[in-house]
């Protein structure tokens, strides 16, 4: 008798439904009917969301909250076999964080699909949009469900490709094309590090597999549908294996091998999650349609890096200072992006920088985890969970405003609160949630992150996160006051109208989720190790954090809610500092300088020369030789039967001569 329920046994349906829908919509429905393509794609994601929730329900019925939550691989097939006993499988890993991500990704994606039916109406690429959206959802779910690191890598790249397609959706617009290329190249660059990390882990994991594989396989027996392989997370996260890997000793410049591998893996994660200094692609990625920004650059793709770190967190903990790198990069990005966010005028760019900042929060939460203080793990996942809802809501709300005003500039909006009451209410909920005001979702998760940072003994990181809480509240309420309060600043804003129901319904659903998702006792569901995390709010932290957030809101009101001109004067008073922040600390310019002057001149040009002359020259030489030989041989073909006869007779004579010579 199989103890697993229907949904767990068929957990593959969660990524498979979007995949089949992608094929169906892309190949058959799209040329046939736009409307059918949109509806079918949306229904498929809703079906997938339903299965994901069912899987979650069955998993937590099998392992009730508050207890241990061992990972399961309820479904898997052998994918690539190198030789007996060494193969790569494709499967579905079910554990609390993958279940969490599946539910979040499918829910947000379904709502974004629904919203897009309204938002993309009349667009030329309507069917194409839904095709790509389905492909993206499939890739993300495959990544989340990956039971081994190689499957994760495959889907990781698929996510990269589909985000490339979606960012460059308006491919006739040069800026969108440039943004999609930038996103792809930056993430690919980071993925090179990830891949080297995978190779190190897989190689040494395989070396130790003969010794430890049997014991680990016995431990997970009955929980995995496929035979244990050295690439599986079940194997790589095992303490015995990690102990073995950690004991390998220094590899490069005295850095232990495992630390090096984990830093490289984190490089990949930082690329996808747009951590400093690989963050440059995310603000530009706002060139894509707004639902894409909501889905990819808020709720799903950018949290792939966080998910990767969380998935390999035991290895990071064993990797020692690798985790410190995570924490520092997270904390720095958190602050850095929040500061830039204050000065941006494009509403989607502000939201993009706030995404960077919030992802930085999650990273730093994971970074402060130690064996003694595993709270950061729960906190990071909790923030991922709540952030997905309120950030998607912010983007979709921004999309509704852009739809109404036909401009991304917050200074073209204003007074929208009366024109678009539903959007206004939803946006306000999301803004309060991200600012961390009780009882909205962000309050609870941010509180947990602050508690984790303080509990882990990282006072500096705690201070940074507390400061960023204030900054977040400030820049979010800046755009809120500017765009919703005051009087309309443009003709379009004057005549803005509320979005249609198909667009505000998802907003309302997400607003509801942003309101209630904070009350989920996350510690009982997601925890590192077997013991649940203590729930509840730590008032010693929550009160100062709330005060900081309220101060941020107050400051935002002072500058942007009250009489006009105060912000202008403050910016002028700050002078050069303001300009540097406004230009995003010139990071893009530094990149451009480095690529143009160093990479292009010193690396790309010699390589191009070598390619053009040595490689192409070799190819051309072989072609020319062949052609010369052909030209010479062509002379033989005269078309004269008699000439052929001469060759024939000469051949016979030659053969006879050889035979005669052989007889001698």
């Amino acid at each position, binding site marked *: 008798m199989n103890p697993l329920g229907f949904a767990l046994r068929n957990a593959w349906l969660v990524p498979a439904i979007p995949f089949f829908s992608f094929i169906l919509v892309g190949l058959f429905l799209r040329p046939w009917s736009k409307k059918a393509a949109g509806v079918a794609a949306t229904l498929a994601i809703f079906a997938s969301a339903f299965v994901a929730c069912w899987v979650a329900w069955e998993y937590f019925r099998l392992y009730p909250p508050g207890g241990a939550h061992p990972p399961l691989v309820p479904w898997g097939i052998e994918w690539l076999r190198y030789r007996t006993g060494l193969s790569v499988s494709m499967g579905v890993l079910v554990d609390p964080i993958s279940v969490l991500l599946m539910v979040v990704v499918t829910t947000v994606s379904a709502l974004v699909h629904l919203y897009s039916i309204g938002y993309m109406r009349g667009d030329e690429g309507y069917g194409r949009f839904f095709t790509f959206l389905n492909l993206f959802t499939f890739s993300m779910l495959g990544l989340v469900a990956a039971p081994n690191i190689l499957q994760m890598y495959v889907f990781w790249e698929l996510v990269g490709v589909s985000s490339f397609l979606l960012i460059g959706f308006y491919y006739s617009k040069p800026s969108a094309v440039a943004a999609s290329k930038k996103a792809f190249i930056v993430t690919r660059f980071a993925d090179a590090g990830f891949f080297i990390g995978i190779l190190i882990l897989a190689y040494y994991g395989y070396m130790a597999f003969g010794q430890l594989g049997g014991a680990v396989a016995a431990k997970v027996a009955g929980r995995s549908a496929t035979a244990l392989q050295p690439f599986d997370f079940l194997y790589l996260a095992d303490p015995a294996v990690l102990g073995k890997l950690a004991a390998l000793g220094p590899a490069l410049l005295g850095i232990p091998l495992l630390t090096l591998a984990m830093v490289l893996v984190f490089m990949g994660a930082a690329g996808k999650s747009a951590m400093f200094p690989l963050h440059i692609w995310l603000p530009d990625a706002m060139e894509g349609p707004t639902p894409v920004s909501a889905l990819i650059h808020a709720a799903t793709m950018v949290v792939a890096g966080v998910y990767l770190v969380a998935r390999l967190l035991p290895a990071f903990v064993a990797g020692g200072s690798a985790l410190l790198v995570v924490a520092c990069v997270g904390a720095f990005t958190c602050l850095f992006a929040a500061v830039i966010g204050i000065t941006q005028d494009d509403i989607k760019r502000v939201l993009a920088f706030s995404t960077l900042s919030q992802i930085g929060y999650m990273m730093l939460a994971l970074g402060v985890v130690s064996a003694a203080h595993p709270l950061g793990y729960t906190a990071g996942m909790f923030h991922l969970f709540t952030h997905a809802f309120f950030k998607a809501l912010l983007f979709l709300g921004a999309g509704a405003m852009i739809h109404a005003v036909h401009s991304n500039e917050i200074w073209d909006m204003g007074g929208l609160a009366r024109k678009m009451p539903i959007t206004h209410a939803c946006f306000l909920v999301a803004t309060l949630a991200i600012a961390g005001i009780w009882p909205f979702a962000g309050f609870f998760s941010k509180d947990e992150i602050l508690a984790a940072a303080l509990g882990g003994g990282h006072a500096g990181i705690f201070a940074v996160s507390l400061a960023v809480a204030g900054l977040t509240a400030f820049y979010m309420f800046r755009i809120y006051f500017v765009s919703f309060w005051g009087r309309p600043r443009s003709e379009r804003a004057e005549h803005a109208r509320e979005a249609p129901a198909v667009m505000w319904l998802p907003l309302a659903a997400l607003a509801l989720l942003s309101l209630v998702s904070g009350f989920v006792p996350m510690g009982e569901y997601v925890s590192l190790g077997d013991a649940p995390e203590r729930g509840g709010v730590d008032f010693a932290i929550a009160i100062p954090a709330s005060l900081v957030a309220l101060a941020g809101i107050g400051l935002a009101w002072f500058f942007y809610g009250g009489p006009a001109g105060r912000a202008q004067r403050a910016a002028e008073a700050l002078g050069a500092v303001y300009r540097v922040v406004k230009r995003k600390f010139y990071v893009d310019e530094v990149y451009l300088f480095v690529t143009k002057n160093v990479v292009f001149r010193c690396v790309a040009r010699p390589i191009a020369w070598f390619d053009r002359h040595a490689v192409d020259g070799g190819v051309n030489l072989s072609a020319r030789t062949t052609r010369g030989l052909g030209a010479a041989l062509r002379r033989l*073909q*005269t*078309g*004269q*039967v*008699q000439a052929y*006869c*001469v060759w024939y*007779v000469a051949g016979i004579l030659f053969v006879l001569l050889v035979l005669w010579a052989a007889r001698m």
Partner: protein
Amino acid sequence: MIRFLASHPPGMTHWLLLSAALFSIGLYGLLSRRNAVGILMSVELMLNSAALNFVVFNRFVQPGRMDGQVMAIFVIAVAAAAVVVGMAIFVALFRHRATVDVNRAADLKH
């Protein structure tokens, strides 16, 4: 001369030499003639030298049997058929080109 020949009937070697000479003349003609009809005639010479070989070997190696003679009849029949086909082609070529010079019929090149 006649008496000499009557008292010294030619042996196998003589016949084979005659056959080889016929074959060589035919081969030379095949390779050197420009006129298509000449080529056809050369081919006939070569075929006949082969037929002669059959008959000679039949006479001197297995005198009691008929195989070689039968083969010679076959060769003659096939040669006649070949000439018919060949002449038909040359007539067509002549109608088309007004010449039977094989040097000017180099279409196989293309």
